[in-house]
């Protein structure tokens, strides 16, 4: 009996010891990170960056080299950049761990629409409103990185999207993207008469059916239901107001390719690229995959019609990956210099072009892709709305809900009920 007690006690001691070690090492880490050897006029600064876009490592490396050279020339500061580019799947996970352990990178990337609100509330974002780059941002992009009237991020990726359509099939049959739901129905009939499947369905990954939600909610907010998001955040609204979104969902589901729930995004892109279907409710972020599957494909972006009101047929416009500065950064000046350098008058245009991102600032004057131009035409006509700020939890829920709706396990009302509950839960957690 006595012996076993001793064993337990020594085990406990070990635990305590180890726990002690753990916190110690954490603290010492923190102090080494803050190392800024300042000697006379020549200053050395270590800048830590965390950007979840590993596929663009080369472009970022080059751009950072330019920044280092510029900083050395203008301010005589030796900048050492520790660039970390984790896979986007776990980037946000790693970032949160860093922030929670008080080891925030000086500059990091987050998703403008999805992540800015929660990061802002937790106090991890520096206010950038007074920075020079703000004046260069396009008016259509600026709201995506603004919260409480403060600009908190510089947008990198921005997308304007609705659905993709195969321009060859459309021109062969002398069709144009429809502006109302009835026109869409006629178009679907024409396609079917010509033995062409109207829609590509790839519902295996729940984020794809999820796309219907930002499209339909965004357009309905823009055309009347202005305070929907605010009311939902106060537990006063319901998705029952958005029920008409099922009109277009039903039309797409009823006229799509087979075995939708077994087709993932990449398979869907390949099928669409090879003309298996004329349209795909999807954004141009799949452009690269589609072109890889069929380099000759000619496709465009058009706004998805929701009802017989042509004013509701709008393009979704939003920023996604954006760079922010940590308020706890030890080298905030240099970090801010870099943020401004991202939209540098001379260099920025080439940088964004090499990343194949859409223009986000007035200084961007490169030639973009045809599908970007397609969408830009609508945006310039004012036929666009800002991607609505729907909580991620609700987006996840709608993806799963629409999968179940497609496999006839849930009715429309069930989906709406589940969405309302998801948003209420979100409110409860983020009060």
């Amino acid at each position, binding site marked *: 009996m006595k012996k076993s007690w001793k064993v337990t006690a*020594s085990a406990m001691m070990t635990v305590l010891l180890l726990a002690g070690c753990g916190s110690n090492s954490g603290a010492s880490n923190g102090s080494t990170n803050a190392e800024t050897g300042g000697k006379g006029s020549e200053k050395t600064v270590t800048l830590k960056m965390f950007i979840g876009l590993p596929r663009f490592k080369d472009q970022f490396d080059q751009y950072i080299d330019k920044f280092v050279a510029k900083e050395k020339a203008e301010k005589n500061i030796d900048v050492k950049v520790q660039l970390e580019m984790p896979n986007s799947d776990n980037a946000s996970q790693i970032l*949160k761990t860093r922030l929670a352990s008080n080891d925030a990178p000086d500059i990091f990337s987050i998703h403008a629409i999805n992540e800015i609100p*929660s990061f802002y509330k937790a106090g991890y974002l520096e206010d950038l409103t007074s920075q020079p780059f703000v004046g260069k941002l396009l008016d259509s992009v600026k709201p995506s990185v603004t919260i409480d009237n403060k600009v908190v991020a510089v947008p990198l990726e921005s997308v304007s999207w609705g659905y993709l359509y195969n321009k060859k099939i459309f021109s062969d049959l002398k069709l144009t993207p429809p502006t109302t739901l009835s026109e869409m129905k006629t178009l679907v009939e024409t396609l079917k008469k010509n033995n062409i499947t109207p829609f590509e369905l790839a519902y295996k990954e729940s984020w794809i059916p999820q796309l219907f939600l930002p499209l339909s909610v965004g357009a309905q907010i823009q055309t009347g239901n202005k305070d929907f998001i605010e009311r939902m955040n106060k537990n006063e609204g319901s998705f029952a107001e958005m029920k008409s979104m099922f009109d277009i969902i039903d039309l797409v589901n009823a006229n799509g390719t087979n075995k*939708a*729930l077994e087709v993932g995004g990449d398979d869907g892109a390949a099928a669409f690229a090879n003309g298996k279907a004329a349209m795909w409710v999807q954004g141009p972020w799949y452009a690269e995959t589609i072109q890889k599957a069929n380099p000759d494909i000619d496709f465009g972006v058009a706004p998805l019609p929701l009802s017989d009101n042509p004013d509701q047929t709008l393009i979704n416009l939003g920023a996604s990956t954006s760079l922010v500065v940590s308020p706890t950064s030890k080298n905030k000046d240099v970090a801010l210099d870099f943020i401004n350098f991202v939209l540098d008058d001379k260099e920025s245009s080439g940088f964004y072009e090499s990343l194949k991102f859409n223009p986000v600032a007035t200084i961007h004057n490169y030639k973009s892709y045809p599908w970007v131009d397609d969408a830009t035409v609508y945006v310039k006509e004012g036929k666009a709305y800002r991607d609505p700020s729907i909580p991620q939890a609700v987006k996840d829920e709608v993806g799963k809900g629409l*999968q179940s709706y497609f496999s006839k396990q849930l009715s429309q009302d069930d989906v709406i009920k589940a969405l309302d509950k998801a948003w209420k839960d979100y409110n409860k*957690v983020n009060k």
Partner: protein
Amino acid sequence: MLKKSRNLRSMLYFVGPALLFYTLFMLIPTIGGMFYSITDWNGLNRNYSFVGFANFVEALTDDPDFINALLFTLKYVVVMVILQNVLALLLAVFIESRTRFKGFFRTIFFMPNMISLIISAFMWTFVFTQVLPQLAEKTALLFLDQSWIGDPKFSFFSIVIVSLWNGVGYMMIIYLAGLQGVPQSLKEAAVIDGANPVQTFRHITLPMISHAITICFFLTLNGAFKVFEVVFGLTGGGPGRSTQVITMNIYEEAFSNNFRYGYASAKSVILFIIILLVTLIQIRVTKRNEVEA
């Protein structure tokens, strides 16, 4: 007293390295998880508050998805524990009864176990979505052309098939070892007493391998409750949440919904308690039936 402390010290030397890593990577996180289960931490905020047992109450009374995931997991556990053990035992008996090619069959059946579960799930995704429909087209086996992954009626079977394919081999090896430990003299005595093969199996072999049965039941039970990779790789819990297992529900709660780490920790504590209770009962019951040669 001196001897005792020396004993203790030598024991610590032996278990020390393992204990160190166990504490560092298992015990401390487990205790941490239990601690977070009574908070409302969201994984991001620096401060959080204690909410007592509210998380547990919510999980059990106000979270239909969690309860559905729990029921689905239970269904999976029952099917898997029975099928995996029956099939493994059958294979073991079959291989043990062969005189030639023993090693060959043993290797063949064990091989799937050496492939990581997530990879076998992806392999089988290909089989279910491409190979089987093609096969149905080429042959007349039309029943093969199902929506094996997309249709909630079939996806359960797909999951079970892949888990069995992957897991049976390991149990089979344990049963083989058990079967080889059954003394020949007992079997011969039974034959001399006029027992037929079925009777010998029922009254000699089964009791003699009961320790293997205990281990295998424990492993399958434990593993089936914690199933994640197969479902994640095959269906991702979908369509909707129709094949969502409990671990996946926890994962979703913590990492993709509202980042309710505290609430998700509470759910994992519930899972931990369930597994603990069930396996304790199982070991009690099967241990009681064990016999020594």
